[in-house]
């Protein structure tokens, strides 16, 4: 037996009969190093030596496996600079032509290991395809990710960064459960109006600048620069009284705001 995980199960006794556990071994389980026949000749190791390993289990002729291999080929390229040991593992029962076709189609560069007797499969309890397994530098199981149509590589990349300590738990969670990617909203629209008003101010279109500043303030009352802009636009129109009030509102939010202080000073003249 090549994978210690399976032994651990056998030892656990509880689950004795015919290793009846579909559940994957828990994270942290040591995966044992093995050397397997490499597709195309020679042998190769399942795990890296002191590096993180990414193992891609696939089945030739299966759509999801093909899709996953294509995604992993891209992923492999993107992560080329990372110290990662990539391998693909295929059942010993797969035919050479079928494997060859998938390797060619996907363009993966990683070695394909042939799992004669499906011992690695048994050890990691891989019962379907495709699955990506990630181990840490010591060869301990870190992640088990079955097929995902969306974001498969992102997920793999995030696990890798997490294992390498470059990404914290919160960071990993943000990739596994990304918050909505949206745009707009009141704050953004306030910013746009502020920019529009500032551009108007630059060319001395004071009324337009004041209107835009007013819109910005209505959407985001705490936008200091919008109060400053309003002050400047009003001052430009000679309305120093209301301009001072606007500068004061800016200073109430940011008491050392240089532009507001300057604006007030200029108005006092």
């Amino acid at each position, binding site marked *: 037996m090549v994978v210690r995980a399976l032994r651990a199960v056998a030892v656990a006794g509880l*689950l004795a*009969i*015919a*290793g*009846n*556990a*579909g*559940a*994957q*071994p*828990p*994270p942290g389980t040591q995966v044992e190093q093995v050397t397997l026949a490499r597709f195309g000749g020679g042998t190769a190791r399942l795990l890296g030596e002191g590096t993180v390993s990414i193992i891609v289990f696939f*089945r*030739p002729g*299966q*759509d*999801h496996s*093909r*899709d996953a291999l294509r995604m992993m080929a891209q992923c492999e390229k993107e992560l080329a600079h990372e110290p990662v040991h990539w391998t693909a593992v295929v*059942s*010993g*029962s*797969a035919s050479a032509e*079928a494997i060859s076709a998938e390797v060619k189609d996907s363009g993966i560069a990683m070695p394909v290991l042939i799992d004669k007797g*499906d011992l690695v499969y*048994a050890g990691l*309890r891989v*019962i*379907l*395809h495709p699955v990506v397994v990630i181990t840490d530098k010591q060869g301990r199981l870190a*992640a*088990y*990710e*079955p*097929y*995902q*149509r*969306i*974001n498969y590589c*992102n997920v793999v990349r995030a696990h890798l960064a997490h294992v390498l300590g470059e990404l914290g738990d919160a960071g990993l969670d943000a990739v*596994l*459960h*990304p*918050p*909505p*990617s*949206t*745009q707009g909203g009141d704050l*953004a629209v306030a*910013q*746009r*109006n502020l*920019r*529009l008003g500032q*551009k*108007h101010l630059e*060319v001395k*279109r004071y009324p*337009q600048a004041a209107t*835009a500043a007013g819109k910005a303030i209505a959407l985001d009352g705490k936008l200091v620069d919008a109060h400053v802009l309003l002050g400047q636009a009003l001052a430009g129109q000679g309305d120093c009284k209301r301009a001072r009030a606007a500068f004061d509102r800016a200073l109430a939010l940011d008491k050392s705001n240089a532009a507001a202080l300057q604006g007030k000073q200029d108005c006092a003249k």
Partner: protein
Amino acid sequence: MKNQRISTSPNMTALALSFLLLSCAAMLVSDEAQSREDSPKAFSRAETPKSIPDLITYKAGVLGPMHGGEPVSEHSPFADGACDFCHKGDAKNPGALLKPVNQICFDCHSEFEEMLTKRPVKHAAAAKQCTNCHNPHNSRNQHLLISDQVTLCTSCHTAMKTLLDTATVKHGALAEGKCSTCHNPHASAVEKLLIQLPFDLCIKCHSRDGLQDASGTRLTNFKTLLDNNPVWHAPVAGKDCSACHTPHGGKNFRLLVEPYPAKFYSAYEPDNYALCFTCHNSNMVDTPDTTTLTGFRDGSRNLHYLHVNKPDRGRTCRACHEVHASKHPFQIRDSVPFGDKGWMLKLNYTKKANGGSCEKTCHSLKEYDRSKK
């Protein structure tokens, strides 16, 4: 629901599967590595259009200010008469643009520059030219769009147009014609420019009572389902509803990416169950005797084979399994429909160390025991 939020990481899977299960490793020993290339396929990624026409740079007329008619949206700088923010020359005679379009837009919309730099998935159309979609002056459409969204998006994504036009099973999600319900047309953190993972998007609409399909059948409230049924199927827990459903419409029952029988009984053909076998291995149902391919066996008698693999009235997977989530191990159903009166019979499934049993309300106890010789 909370403790199930983690994706299909080992601990989650362990949780979902924290029940014994056969070492099905040999399931993979697939002799039939035959390709199903010839079988009719739904719209798999392989068929995603690769040939998108060159980005449109609209011909004269399309991007200018509207001539007549009431605009639905109007751009503030245009409304202010500030042609000079974008054009050389004056308002009466605006000339060439001051600089490349996107640079102009970023002057006031800097968050878009940031978005197109920082978010990992960027829309080529937006990175190239905002005016591929927006009229910088005014428009008959919301958000200054140069046309309604479906026309706009499918003007480049022509294969999507074909799909939408030819889908026999349509999806209500598209009824409003807003691609932007699910896609961010600018940039996003999720592949395919999705605003969030498919799951989160699906749940938004599919979490209310009273949603009905085209024939009036009530659809599941997924929030209720997932909250009350802790055993989630791994791809559901992995937030990947689109591993099984094609969101834009398709030709299979229930928008499934591959065929799956629609009824309780069905003749067995691996192709009928292509959906399940896109991930699972059909030999779990094809092999009469096994001690490895499935945990659902009595001794070596494969009970999946026995129940499902029949030339006429084979039971479909739904006779025993929930495909999304259930209360019982292996997503076994709580009850099954009986007769045409809408009665439900409890299955009373119990998992045992070497097998399990079920006891339908009016049918004797049935047991299976893997250790039987």
